[in-house]
């Protein structure tokens, strides 16, 4: 197989809630489960701390994909946080899709503290998806740049 010299490496931001998903990511590490280094995790107390602004900001600064992970619905450490997060993200992602932004660049996944394997598998799959999409240009180009 020919190795592409300028292989595209996406920038992926993963927001993980402290109690489930961040612990799940730790477990993936403890079990030495590989996933691409393109994923960088930001720890938040709960998925409900994730402001849509953060996601747009990440895209603005060059992220190619943003994924948010939280406790499974019903298991939120703060009882209800992920239920609000679920509504917020559903609407935000739907809006981005509506604006013509590739919907595969955004994702929500519920990962428990015991699901290290799921975390790694999710990240592998997400990176693969985003890599196929290539660089994130549309959100930036939504307005024509003045020539």
């Amino acid at each position, binding site marked *: 197989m020919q190795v592409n010299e300028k292989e595209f490496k996406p920038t992926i931001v993963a927001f993980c809630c402290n109690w489930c998903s961040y612990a799940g990511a730790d477990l993936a590490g403890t079990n030495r489960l590989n996933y691409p280094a393109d994923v960088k995790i930001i720890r938040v107390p709960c998925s409900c701390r994730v402001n849509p602004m953060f996601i747009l900001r990440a895209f603005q600064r060059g992220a190619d994909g943003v994924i948010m992970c939280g406790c499974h619905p019903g298991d939120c450490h703060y009882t209800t946080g992920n239920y609000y997060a679920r509504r917020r993200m559903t609407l935000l992602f739907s*809006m981005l899709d509506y604006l013509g932004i590739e919907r595969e660049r955004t994702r929500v996944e519920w990962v428990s503290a015991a699901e290290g394997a799921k975390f790694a598998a999710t990240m592998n799959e997400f990176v693969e998806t985003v890599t196929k999409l290539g660089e994130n240009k549309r959100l930036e180009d939504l307005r024509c740049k003045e020539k």
Partner: protein
Amino acid sequence: MQGKMIARAKELLQNGTVNRVIGWKAGDFAYDITPAVFNSAEELDAGFVYNDFCGANFSKYLVKESRKEGKILVFLKPCDTYSFNQLTKEHRIIRDNIYVVGVPCDGKTDGETLKLKGITGITGIKTEGDSFVVDTLYGEKTIAKADALPERCLSCKSKKHVAYDELLGEDGEVCESNRFDMVEKLEAMSSEERFNFWRGELSRCIRCNACRNVCPACTCERCVFDNDNSGIAQKAAADSFEENMFHIIRAFHVAGRCTDCGECSRVCPQNIPLHLLNRKFIKDINEFYGEFQAGEDTETRAPLNIFDTEDVEPSVVYEKGGN
């Protein structure tokens, strides 16, 4: 109607129910009508108008006005009352300091639209059946309402007042509206087509902030875009991305609170169909979480401040098909 309204306003001023009136005032031209506060019967006689150009939604003005000394009289059209309720629910207006008189509305046009239809030299307007009869320097012109009304009136969601202290004229009903047709059309497009559509629209934005300033849901003490500490402040956009962010964040901030009054699109000097962003959220909320009309009452929780354990997963966005 105008006469009735002035007469009632005078009575309420006279008997001390209110000490001032917010209403529409004639400008230099017949069609450039502006909101104004009237303090006396004389001022009402001199400038108060109510006609088919009186489109402005007064609800937002009450955020400041209701915090002033004394009670204020406000005339609200049916769609304005939804914004009014929403602001009451969010404690943004002090209900006790306001006296609401509901007035009927059959759709409001504006000078720009008429001019585009070739009607110039406008000196007055009146409704006759399904048409506007426009007085011009060149004589009377008749135009069908269907041709002269903005989108928001053509797809009117309700002619029913949801908040008032008294009504002048008959109250209407909630309408069967086709207001989501365009959203559906966009949804049916491919991702590429949607992108091109919005690129065409949003590219015209000059960031004048008119949409934000007129929006009855945008009443923050200080907007995040003006707040240096918010981390996303932008007085003048540094890059094109910020413009996109502005519209997405603004739509998100009013999601579940926007009553679909259409003021944003009405005031946009670049004619960007901003209401299509808000309506997308409204449509999604209706589909995902059940029918919800912001401002319908002052009790129901906003859809983003409540949840159901069986809510749809965000993956619904990918699973709906298309691309």
